[in-house]
């Protein structure tokens, strides 16, 4: 078999694999754009093959690489099973991603990404295709991967706010989310302080006020490498990305994000100051947590929306705030001034304002009270009231507010008089079911207003 014959064989194989994906039911219509995009890419390779001669080995190799890449995307179609993730949450996330990740192709035409949702054994991630949309109208793929074991854990799913930030950072084109985040937020965070340059980062690490864990890590590094540690610019950029994404997630999902951030990251960071100096891809947990706490304070989210009049729910909400705002870390962990953070917040809000209702808004005290009360009665947290003649009073509640109520219930449950509080799993399931019911409520409201 010659290399060119092998290329033809591989092309046929990938085509057959794509065709076979249609045998399975992945949910209604959602896989159609994804499938069509794969067909279009396959067709482009098909057009190219007859023009290749047997001695163009590098070209054959390039086409094989394209086929291999396409096969990977095709394989991901088969990883999408509606029963393996919370699709009410996924639908909300899809809507957010579609708005945030739209970009212009080289012709200047707006191109929406193709959002595909799968459930995997690994952690939360959004895989965003790096290839820029071409004039031929190709769309980028964005794969949202839920961790399979956490199918119903919608309270933890708010961490997707961070992942969505990463994807938004990589969008291209002027006026898009990526452009604004780079020009407004990145600029703000590097205007002064340790993150302004890698030299300043090195100084910050070596500062006398650094915790002993850092000093020990620096000493170990010097002993093993034979030279003092110098922070590389590449990793400074990675830290900036991570910190911007934390801000992005917080502003998107509110304190519920901060709660999920702490619940997921704290157990995996026994040393909150650990940097892993040989490959410091992420800032220490202490730095990330401290920044989130300060931003919540700057936004006024450190104060409960309920008051003493709301009694138990007020004490429950205070428990949540105590949990997310508890900050035991040294002042050395502060990387940014309030002024920098305010500018960064404004930059992210500019991105959100371009897409209507994106971004966390605090619920009213009455709404929060209603939602938490429903959970205390073991009911999905929606606002479901009828008047004295049986007419329903339908209320839109934003997903982040529902999830905030879920966290308030879970972290504040010790204040409940009832002795049979819900488990974390059941709290999540009820919130998950509430997202489904809320979708039906929103559809009914929209139908009525048409």
């Amino acid at each position, binding site marked *: 078999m010659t290399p060119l014959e092998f290329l033809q064989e591989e092309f046929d194989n990938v085509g057959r694999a794509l065709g076979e994906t249609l045998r399975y039911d992945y949910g209604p219509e959602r896989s159609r754009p994804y499938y069509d995009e794969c067909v279009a890419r396959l067709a482009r390779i098909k057009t190219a093959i007859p023009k290749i001669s047997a001695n163009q080995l590098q070209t054959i190799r390039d086409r094989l690489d394209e086929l291999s890449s396409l096969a990977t995307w095709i394989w991901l179609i088969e990883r999408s099973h509606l029963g393996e993730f919370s699709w009410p949450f996924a639908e909300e996330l899809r809507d957010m991603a579609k708005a945030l990740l739209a970009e212009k192709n080289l012709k200047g035409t707006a191109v929406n990404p193709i959002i595909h949702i799968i459930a995997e054994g690994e952690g939360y991630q959004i895989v965003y295709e790096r290839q820029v949309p071409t004039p031929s109208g190709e769309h980028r793929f964005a794969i949202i991967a839920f961790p399979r074991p956490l199918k119903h854990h919608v309270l933890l799913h708010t961490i997707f706010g961070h992942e969505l930030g990463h994807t938004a950072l990589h969008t291209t084109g002027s006026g898009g989310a990526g452009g604004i985040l780079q020009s407004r937020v990145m600029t703000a965070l590097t205007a002064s302080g340790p993150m302004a340059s890698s030299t300043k980062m090195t100084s910050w690490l070596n500062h006398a006020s650094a915790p002993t864990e850092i000093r020990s890590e620096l000493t170990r590094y010097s002993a093993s490498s034979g030279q003092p540690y110098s922070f590389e610019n590449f990793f400074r950029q990675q830290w900036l990305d991570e910190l911007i994404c934390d801000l992005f997630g917080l502003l998107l999902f509110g304190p519920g994000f901060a709660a999920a951030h702490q619940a997921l990251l704290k157990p995996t960071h026994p040393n909150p100051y650990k940097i892993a100096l040989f490959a410091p891809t992420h800032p220490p947990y202490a730095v990330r947590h401290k920044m989130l706490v300060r931003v919540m304070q700057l936004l006024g989210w450190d104060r409960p929306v309920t008051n003493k009049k709301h009694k138990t729910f007020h004490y429950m909400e205070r428990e949540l705030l105590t949990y997310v705002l508890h900050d035991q870390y040294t002042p050395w962990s502060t990387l940014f001034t309030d002024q920098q953070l305010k500018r960064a917040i404004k930059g992210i809000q500019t991105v959100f304002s371009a897409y209507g209702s994106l971004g966390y808004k605090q619920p009213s005290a009455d709404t929060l009270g209603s939602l938490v009360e429903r959970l205390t009665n073991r009911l999905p947290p*929606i606002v479901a009231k*009828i008047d004295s003649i049986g007419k329903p009073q339908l209320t839109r509640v934003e997903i982040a507010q529902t999830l905030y109520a879920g966290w308030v219930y879970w972290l504040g449950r010790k204040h409940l008089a009832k002795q049979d509080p819900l488990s974390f799993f059941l709290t999540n*399931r009820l919130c998950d*079911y509430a997202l*489904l019911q809320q*979708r039906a409520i929103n559809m009914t409201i929209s139908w009525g207003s048409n």
Partner: protein
Amino acid sequence: MTILGRAEIIRRIKSGNLVVSPILTEEQIGAASIDLRMGNVVLMVRARGASHVDPAATMTKSGTAQDYEIEVDRQQKHERYEIPFETKFLLHPSSLALVPTLEWLKLPPDVLGTVTARSTWAREGLSIATATLIEPHYEGIATLELANLGQIPIALYPGLRIAQIAFARVGGDTLRPSRGQFSRSFEPRQGDIAKDDGAFIPRRP
């Protein structure tokens, strides 16, 4: 036995004594019933699944390898579909599908629920006339056992009002020794047809 009328149903819902939520339209509450909407999960018996239903096949000997086989049979009996809103589900003639209600129910100690098909749909052949009673104290979704008794398939969409529930006041104490096996259900699932009837069912060798 007294059937609750519309005013009593509304009064109980408003006070939180009875929960059927969400109520999406005023018409959902009838003279003496509440319409129930189809939820988003469908369980259908798998064509290549179990050959027949036999309570003896569900009897377990705890800790033996047999438990694995029983669990596999139980879990693989049905094909499970999640059906988002605005998505069609076709119920073919003579087939049975288990679906949840969109509504979450919570019944007080003195109320029994009775689920039936809505006559509008029954005229098309849609039957929901199998397990119809919902006990006092129940909380969770209600499972609707849908059967198409007509000659042509019926298209169903989540959110449609396909069933109705009427409520009757129950006299006397309704507390039972243990929670019902389907209480706090979020979706339909296979029941245990041998539960508490072991005395009458032969054990596997």
